[in-house]
């Protein structure tokens, strides 16, 4: 809402400086978006004084004048010098105060003031009439100002043509503030001032009664709560008077013609949208026009004022001509066919209320917003229609030369009573936590237009004004009192809480631990969009089996964000690509986030949480004293192992991932992650080079994805304490040459089961391949074994005996041989 300060000033006493009011608005809850200086563009037009006036030597009606414009025309020393102006007006004398446009001024109609010669004499400006300044039609002579007018003052300042507009953002609960009278009341309540709002009324109604010209039928009172109509005849379409045009422009509209401007002006004044139909364009039957408000038919068409053909639905309301042709989209926009134009003489004025819900949906469905729809969807005061129509009729009379027909057609099926609310003063104080006096409450509510009656026992009976749909309950009044009291003045306290305790749950702590562990490993946390492109899974080569239905966004911003993701991997690979594209080749990222598995017949999807990591390049750039190898499968696996270990998850196993199922992973470098009793937790592996190519990545990427729900389910608070050994152990190395097909896991298991109680530890420390020394298709695996007994120091004989037995068993079980 653009609030003209000059206009507001006419209704309530406001501070001299608009910024002081802005501060009050901010304090009491009217958000101010901008404060702008506006005004008629009359630069270089000043108040002036006629110093001398002599007849023009070569003219019988023109005068040669010297005009003092103060400091605006000076000589080299800076002393004021009068301007020489040739003037044809007759209504002034020497010494008169006048208005002078100097060279450089541009008057309305793009009239540029230049230095000129009139009958041989130089003229350096123009003395102006009202019409020349666009202030009215008077052109009988130049403006003569009162003798006390100052000299050399910008004329816009002198006449108060300059204005300040406070652009307020009105919250949706305050339709009353979408009007100047509403803003005046709000301002008065903030400032604790009186309002003085005077609305015009028709001076002399004449001609036939409106009931003989128009009737109104409301088909469905649910769509239209009240419809009033008035008729004015013989309007003279033309430009609006300057004061009206100025206010309409300040409020944010263009001026169109006097009739349309009056409807807009009254809407800005009162908040009641109005519509003017050209009466002559409506069908006449039985000597009358018949307005019918009805629901639109599905598929019905209407060309609105903006020239667009609109296809309507049965949820929308239309104003029709005798029930048939729509002539306006109720509460949103008029129809083109009944528009006011140059030839309009008679006007049917609509002042009505329509259902906020229907208007809101209509506006959203047609993507059509108007000043009217903005007000109707926030609710317009039904009690006001007729009185607003009176104001508009009076202005048609004043500004359009109209003859106003007596009477108002008023269909008002169910008048809405003003709500009566009981307010407990103690409840106000209790909710605010502040000692607000009763007098403050009653006084300020009254300033807001409420009727406040003390009802004993510290309660008030409050009747809210009908233009405040947000005031229906006690708490609504409490809000008004608190905001006018000043939220800033309420003492801050902390809740005096009892019987409650807070804290993070074990699961929340563990999720933090997952992140901390991965960071300790060297991965950085990132955040990607939960959105996905329709083709993401296909690009990855990932089947959508077990990933539910995609959650489809009806109104996506961009086509490649039209679904919710079913895997975090695509966006993480995009992050890898982003880094590589920007010259960052070492990438290690993880994200903990949700994916979305929709279900047939289910409104809401499952939203499981996953932790997903991607690594590419090297763990770090080469340092001066060490080199870091390229990330490979075992880095991703190591991250997973470290994570599971931090969560104290036991019996972790990695099994070869089936390439048929894990199609997005490189066969031979992909594993399923199991824990506890064979529970599948996720996968780890190299992303398939073909999948990567679809995301424009041509370097290896290793990744893992683990179910956070599974991790949290398997995690343990603690594992049992294991005795720290006090007795020394004995180490033995063992290098076994086995077939490539024998896995590390198998070999380790064989060693452990062969070692018996005395084998305290097994650690692989080397894998060696050499076709000559080890043999083709074979590998040498070297383990460090540690023997220890819990109850005595082992003798070397004991160790040798045990070790020999172990070697024999392992070789037999694996078909391997000791590497010589």
């Amino acid at each position: 809402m653009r609030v003209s300060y000059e206009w507001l000033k006419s209704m309530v006493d406001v501070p001299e400086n608009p910024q002081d009011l802005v501060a009050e608005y901010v304090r009491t809850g009217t958000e101010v978006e901008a404060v702008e200086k506006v005004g008629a563009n009359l630069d270089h037009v000043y108040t002036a004084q006629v110093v001398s006036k002599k007849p023009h030597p070569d003219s019988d009606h023109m005068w040669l004048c010297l005009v003092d414009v103060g400091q605006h025309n000076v000589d080299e020393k800076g002393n004021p010098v009068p301007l020489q102006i040739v003037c044809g007006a007759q209504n002034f004398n020497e010494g008169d105060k006048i208005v002078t446009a100097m060279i450089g001024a541009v008057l309305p109609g793009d009239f540029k003031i230049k230095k000129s010669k009139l009958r041989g004499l130089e003229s350096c400006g123009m003395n102006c009439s009202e019409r020349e300044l666009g202030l009215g039609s008077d052109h009988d002579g130049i403006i003569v100002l009162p003798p006390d007018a100052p000299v050399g003052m910008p004329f816009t300042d002198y006449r108060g043509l300059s204005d300040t507009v406070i652009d307020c953002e009105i919250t949706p609960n305050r339709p009353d503030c979408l009007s100047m009278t509403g803003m005046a009341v709000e301002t008065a309540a903030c400032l604790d001032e009186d309002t003085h709002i005077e609305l015009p009324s028709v001076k002399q109604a004449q001609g036939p009664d409106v009931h003989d010209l128009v009737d109104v039928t409301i088909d469905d009172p649910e769509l239209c709560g009240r419809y009033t109509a008035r008729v004015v005849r013989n309007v003279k379409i033309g430009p609006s008077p300057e004061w009206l045009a100025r206010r309409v422009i300040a409020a944010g509209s263009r001026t169109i013609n006097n009739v349309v401007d009056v409807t807009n002006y009254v809407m800005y004044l009162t908040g009641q949208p109005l519509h003017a139909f050209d009466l002559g364009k409506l069908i006449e039957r039985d000597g009358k026009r018949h307005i019918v408000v009805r629901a639109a038919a599905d598929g019905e068409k209407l060309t609105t004022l903006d020239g667009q053909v609109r296809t309507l639905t049965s949820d929308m309301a239309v104003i029709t001509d005798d029930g048939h042709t729509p002539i306006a989209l109720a509460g949103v926009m008029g129809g083109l066919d009944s528009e006011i134009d140059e030839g309009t003489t008679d006007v049917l004025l609509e002042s009505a209320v329509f259902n906020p819900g229907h208007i809101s949906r209509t506006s959203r469905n047609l993507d059509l917003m108007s000043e009217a729809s903005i007000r109707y969807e926030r609710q317009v005061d039904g009690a006001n229609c007729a009185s607003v129509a009176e104001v508009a009729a009076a202005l048609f009379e004043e500004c359009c030369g109209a003859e106003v027909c007596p009477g108002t057609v008023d269909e008002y099926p169910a008048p809405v009573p003003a709500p009566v609310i009981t307010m407990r003063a103690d409840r106000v104080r209790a909710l605010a936590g502040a000692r607000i006096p009763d007098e403050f409450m009653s006084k300020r509510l009254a300033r807001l237009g409420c009727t406040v009656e003390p009802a004993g026992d510290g309660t008030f009976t409050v009747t809210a004004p009908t233009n405040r749909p947000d005031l229906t309950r006690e708490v609504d009044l409490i809000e008004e009192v608190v905001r006018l009291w000043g939220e800033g003045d309420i003492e801050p306290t902390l809740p005096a809480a009892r019987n409650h305790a807070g804290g993070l749950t074990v699961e929340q702590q563990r999720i933090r631990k997952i992140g901390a562990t991965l960071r300790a490993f060297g991965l950085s946390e990132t955040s990607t969009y939960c959105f996905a492109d329709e083709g993401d899974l296909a690009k990855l080569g990932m089947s959508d089996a077990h990933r539910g239905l995609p959650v489809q966004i009806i109104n996506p911003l961009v086509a490649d964000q039209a679904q919710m993701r079913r895997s975090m991997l695509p966006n993480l690979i995009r992050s890898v690509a982003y880094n590589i594209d920007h010259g960052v080749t070492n990438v290690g990222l993880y994200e903990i986030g949700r994916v979305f598995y929709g279900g047939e017949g289910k409104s809401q999807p499952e939203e499981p949480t996953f932790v997903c990591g991607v690594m590419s390049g090297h763990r770090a750039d080469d340092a001066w004293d060490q080199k870091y190898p390229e990330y490979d499968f075992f880095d991703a696996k190591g991250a997973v192992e470290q994570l599971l270990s931090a969560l104290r998850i036991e019996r972790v196993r990695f099994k070869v991932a089936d390439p048929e199922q894990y199609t997005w992973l490189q066969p031979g470098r992909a594993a399923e992650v199991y824990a506890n009793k064979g529970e599948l937790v996720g996968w780890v592996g190299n992303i398939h080079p073909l999948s990567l190519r679809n995301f424009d990545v041509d370097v290896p990427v290793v990744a893992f994805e683990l179910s956070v729900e599974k991790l949290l389910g398997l995690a343990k608070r603690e594992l049992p304490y294991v005795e720290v050994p006090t007795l020394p152990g004995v180490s033995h190395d063992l290098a076994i040459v086995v077939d490539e097909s024998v896995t590390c896991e198998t070999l380790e298991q064989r060693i452990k089961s062969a070692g018996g109680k005395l084998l305290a530890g097994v650690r692989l420390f080397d894998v060696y391949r050499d076709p000559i020394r080890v043999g083709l298709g074979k590998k040498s695996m070297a383990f460090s074994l540690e023997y220890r007994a819990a109850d005595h120091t082992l003798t070397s004989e004991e160790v040798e005996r045990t070790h020999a037995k172990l070697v024999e068993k392992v070789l037999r079980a694996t078909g391997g041989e000791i590497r010589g």
Partner: protein
Amino acid sequence: MAMSDDLKAIEAQVQEGLRSVESPEALEALRVNVLGRKGSLTAIMHMMGKVSPEERPAMGQLANTVRTHVDEAIKQRKTELEQAALAMRMAADEVDVTLPGRQLTPGTQHLISQIREEIEDIFVGLGYTVEDGPYVETTYFNFTALNAPEDHPSRSAKDTFYVVDNAPEGKEAHVLGESDVLLRTQTSGVQVHVMEKKQPPIYMICPGTVFRPDTADANHLPQFTQVEGLVVDEGITFGDLKGTLDYFTREIFGKDRATRYRPHFFPFTEPSCEVDVSCGVCGGKGCRFCKNTGWLEILGCGMVDPNVFRYCGIDPEKYTGFAFGIGVERVAALRYDLPDLRMLMTGDMRFLNQF
């Protein structure tokens, strides 16, 4: 008195010898020569029995003194040699201390989750729990139960992502392009979930991802992070709301920051307000960063509307409460003066590793 001369001569020899000894081996040889089993001083000690009984005490004392002197001198020389050797070793071991140190390179936490955890910890410290809810939410929890009227403009598809309802039976979409299922536009819906499950006292926050159809640019993201807070208890006042948020603001921005409460409107709270914090760049005097207002908007809040309590089966006469919503990206942007929020979503290692 030949013996005493001998003793003095030995001491002098040792002193002389030590001066030329430059290695631990030479020192050991010298020690053996004097104090060893066949050493010169040992030999004299063996002859002590042949000294007359009268002379014996004095001679014995002298011999002991010499022996002590010799012993100490050798030990001292040994220490000197060891120190010299250590000094040499250390000199050889000298490094350029300006060479880079060797680090493990741990990863970093995303800026938004850092701030989110900070906020969680502040409220956990005040005795709050941390709650969660679905991202794909129904209009009931996102709007209706939060007192947003059926046809409220905030439900428009301009402000809300709607998703296809896979179970549309019996529901009617009123507006083209809208449905009963949506991506939550606020974490406020979690309030309702919690109040439906739990009786007061409730002290909770809900941090989480929310969505709005704002095209990503320097100041907007279609997916961002909110922390919703809710307190429901007997006797909760607007003053409690202020005290809590003042505490929060100072914890997160610094003790020297002031707050300002501007009345505002939210459907689910009444009275409602927006909270500003004094600008940290200019200290509230007004600058480019705060658009010359001296204040930066950080959150919205208010007293829980009685209608919301009724939706959740809580008696609004017995209980009052407050709720607030904090934009985590907003806090991050204010703290770091981030030029472009989109940096938060690219995964750029050069950005992530700064925090």
